[in-house]
């Protein structure tokens, strides 16, 4: 079997380290995610799933243990390199969309290209392609406040996809949507997974949503208590 995209060995995250209110959130997580998997990390609030997501997304550093993203130990990297990895290898989809309010849909999709190391040729065409993929090409000139929740999330997915990342990390992507548009967004993830073979990590508190995915990792009080449907 090929090297996993995500390999976590004994990941521990402790807040307020060395202080009286020291708090250990993750108690030694071991997790492998392989290329092309659609994994949901499910758990109630307080289970540590957001903390785990921050570490997977290279937004935060673990206190102990090792995290390899595509075989690289990202904890040892400088802030600059971690920025570059977030830029190129991870596509974020947030619960509250996090689009830039003053930029239109097209500009929003192009933001990761702007922060790339080298100038991207045909940036606009590429961004339009991404918007077309999520069915938003006709709204390219609209600003976020002119879009519905579902449309915003589709723009956010287009943005996540533009640099062809190793994983798409979706944090409660349907949390701010009604069930109908929520389903549309989930269908889009399934499409990306099936048609393009994208590795997708979905963070959710909803067992119903998690049950749609191939593999379900259940987190409880900072430990993985169940891992169903995986390849191993």
């Amino acid at each position: 079997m090929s090297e996993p995209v995500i390999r976590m060995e004994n990941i521990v995250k402790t807040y307020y380290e060395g202080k009286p209110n020291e708090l250990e959130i993750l108690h030694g997580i071991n997790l492998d995610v392989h290329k092309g998997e659609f994994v949901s990390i499910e758990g109630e609030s307080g289970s540590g799933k957001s903390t785990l997501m921050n570490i997977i997304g290279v937004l935060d550093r673990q206190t102990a243990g090792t995290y390899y993203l595509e075989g690289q130990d990202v904890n040892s990297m400088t802030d600059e390199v971690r920025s570059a990895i977030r830029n190129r290898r991870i596509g974020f989809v947030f619960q509250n969309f996090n689009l830039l309010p003053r930029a239109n849909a097209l500009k929003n999709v192009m933001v990761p290209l702007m922060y790339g190391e080298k100038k991207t040729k045909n940036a606009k065409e590429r961004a339009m392609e991404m918007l077309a993929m999520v069915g938003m090409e006709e709204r390219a000139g609209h600003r976020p406040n002119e879009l519905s929740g579902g449309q915003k999330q589709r723009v956010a997915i287009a943005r996540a996809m533009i640099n062809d990342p190793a994983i798409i990390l979706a944090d409660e992507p349907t949390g701010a949507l009604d069930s109908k548009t929520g389903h549309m967004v989930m269908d889009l993830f399934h499409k990306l997974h099936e048609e393009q073979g994208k590795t997708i990590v979905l963070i959710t508190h909803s067992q119903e949503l998690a049950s749609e995915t191939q593999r379900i990792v259940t987190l409880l009080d900072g430990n993985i208590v169940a891992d169903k449907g995986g390849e191993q």
Partner: protein
Amino acid sequence: MLIENIKEAVTSIFSNKMRSLLTMLGIIIGISSVIIITTIGGSIQSTLTATLNSLGGNTVSAYVQAKYPEDDDEEAWATWVYPEMEEEDYVTQEMIDGLIAAYPDEVTGVASQQYLGSGTITDEADSDNYANVNVNGITPEYLDYMKLKIVSGRSLTKEDNVGQKRVCVIADTMAQRYFGDKSPIGEIVSVASSDGSIYDFAVVGVYEYNQALFGRVDTTVAEKDRVTELMIPLQTCFKLQGTEQTGYEYFNLLLTPLADVEQATAHIQSYFDELYANNDNFYIYTYNMQSDMGMINTVLSVITVAVSGIAAISLIVGGVGVMNIMLVSITERTREIGVRMALGAKRRTIKMQFVIEAIVLCLIGGLIGVLIGVGIGALLGMVANTIIQSMYAEYSSYIILSVHPSGQAIALSLFFSMLTGVFFGYYPANKASKMEVIDALRYE
């Protein structure tokens, strides 16, 4: 990237128009006040410079002056009388030639003029056809010095002067009135002088008359009777006067266009001091218009420095305003900063973005200030010049009005408003770049 940043900065500034405008107010006031004052100062300065230059700014004036006894030497003063000028006391053409040879890069010639008298030229065939003239002996360079152009024929030459020839150049207005369509060149004019003598001169050239250079028009006299200036060689004039004099008493030295007037004056003074070292009674006194300008320039530059000080203070106050609003803006946009970082923006990229935003904010303020300053400054400069003109009404025809916003002041103002942006934008931008991405992303 830079262009993207500037675009984003402009978008962000314009999305909060009122706030941005109020933030820029300090900078606008500071910059516009500097531009207003420098424009007024520059306008006054350039008006005076242009006027003085037209009156001979690029020349050094000189005259033969008696050596007075020491101020406190009462004994000497008791018996002192102003000495008679002898032939050897005058400045000769040889001395001038020697001066030109010594400083060929500075001195080009001498302009001197001697009034012979006034008179009337009457047409023998038609006594109704006459012209009133002042007869002036001049050196060949004098026409250049007065910026008078020869429009037909030739100018007076050194040979005319040395040979004490009976030749003259006349004003085009006089030629038009007296000779009509006939060419005056080669005609002989007889000037019946008011003292009874009659002088004949052959006309060799016609110059373009410039009323402003010869004082105000006497409007009480019919145009026909108006006096024009008739120029003859200086040496011819001396001969007709019957004096022993062949040298200059009052004269102007013409300088090359690039000569430093002050330095040339010093050279000329020392040249004549050496020549007159053994003269007991006289020496050569030199001066230039530039030294009169010097005082005005000093006053204007003191004012400019004072205003620049005020501007510096208002830029600092304005800059603190910018810093304050940038800090507010960064707090408001914490989430946005977090998103940008999550999408791969490096800390220095975030820093750059906010520094550029502060610079653009200050630069727009500076530009508005420059526009307001140039507008008001030009207006007030015009008013100031008009006041000068009305104060010296009798010289009004000499005054060349010029309104001049200082390019240097504009460039410097924009540079300093940019610097304000860098200086006061750096701290907020640095603060933004120091944010932790997960905290910024979670900020409500």
